[in-house]
């Protein structure tokens, strides 16, 4: 019993060490060094990150607002298809964000503001992923009105995205 508990504690500790070890290794890679030190690395990744953000967050917010009741003349189906472009923006952000993370992995992982941003980004993306199949049948919504649950997800999506942008910006300061 005691031995099993001790074994579990030591295993957990090793796993923890392993995780930190991975981040230390990541930060020491040639790629992370390129992002951190080269003339092109950091500026090019941060610019791609801003472009991807504008596409993903911008198009998601327009879809969210449409589902809440604004721009009622725009067919939901059209914004649903444009969400495909939004996911390309998200892909750009995932890749450029991973590059930026690698450059300072061990500091980011203990940064509460940065980790909050990461949570909000994935929660925001989750709302988009939930809405994507939910709006397929928008043509058959009675009176063209968004069902309550879908409307709620759109509203929460706006809150997550706004939170992600603010905490993302504050990461540079705190």
């Amino acid at each position, binding site marked *: 019993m005691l031995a099993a508990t001790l074994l579990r504690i030591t295993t957990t500790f090793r796993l923890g060490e392993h995780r930190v070890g991975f981040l230390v290794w990541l930060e020491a890679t040639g790629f992370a060094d390129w992002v951190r030190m080269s003339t092109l690395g950091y500026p090019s990744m941060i610019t791609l990150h801003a472009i991807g953000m504008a596409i993903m967050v911008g198009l998601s917010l327009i879809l969210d607002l449409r589902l809440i009741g604004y721009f009622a*003349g725009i067919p939901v189906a059209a914004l649903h298809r444009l969400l495909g*472009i939004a996911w390309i923006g998200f892909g750009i952000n995932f890749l450029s964000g991973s590059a930026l993370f690698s450059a300072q992995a061990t500091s980011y992982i203990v940064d509460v503001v940065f980790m909050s941003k990461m949570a909000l980004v994935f929660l925001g993306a989750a709302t988009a992923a939930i809405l994507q199949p939910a709006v397929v049948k928008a043509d058959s919504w009675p009176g063209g009105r968004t069902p309550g649950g879908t409307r709620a997800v759109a509203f929460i999506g706006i809150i997550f995205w706004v939170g992600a942008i603010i905490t*993302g910006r504050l990461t540079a300061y705190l």
Partner: protein
Amino acid sequence: MDSVMDWMTTTWINQLVLGYAWSWPTLESLHFLALCTLMGSLLVMDLRLIGFERVIPLRAVHSLMPVALVSFAINFVTGLGFLFGDPYTYAANYAFWVKMSLIVLAGVNFLVYFTKVEPAIINLGPNEPTPALAKAVGVMSLVFWFGVLSYGRLLPYLGTGGG
């Protein structure tokens, strides 16, 4: 030019932007939020102008224009805050001037849309193709605004640095 920058640093705007630890981060958060809504609304409008998603009636896509205009106004005001806070650094940075030139070009492009394109297309229904000038204006709008975004983000890393 030097006297304009000197004057900027004597204004209450400069005091407000530099006087509190939260001013600059707050302005930046607003600047980034509004750039997202600006680019999102532009993407939908410009892609429709170019010829994608023709199920959207042009009058309906035009309902996004207030989003774009209010977003730009927010970014203009917050951007002025940055400029009044640190005028010498921005003025010495060539990326800042490229960004401003691209905003002027985007403005000229908007005037072409407003005077020539919009009157010709506003009554087009769903599935009707847009004229060549409309397509060109849509493409140029995306080129200029993504350029503004890129040079804005590159600003601290190019030239002598700023913001």
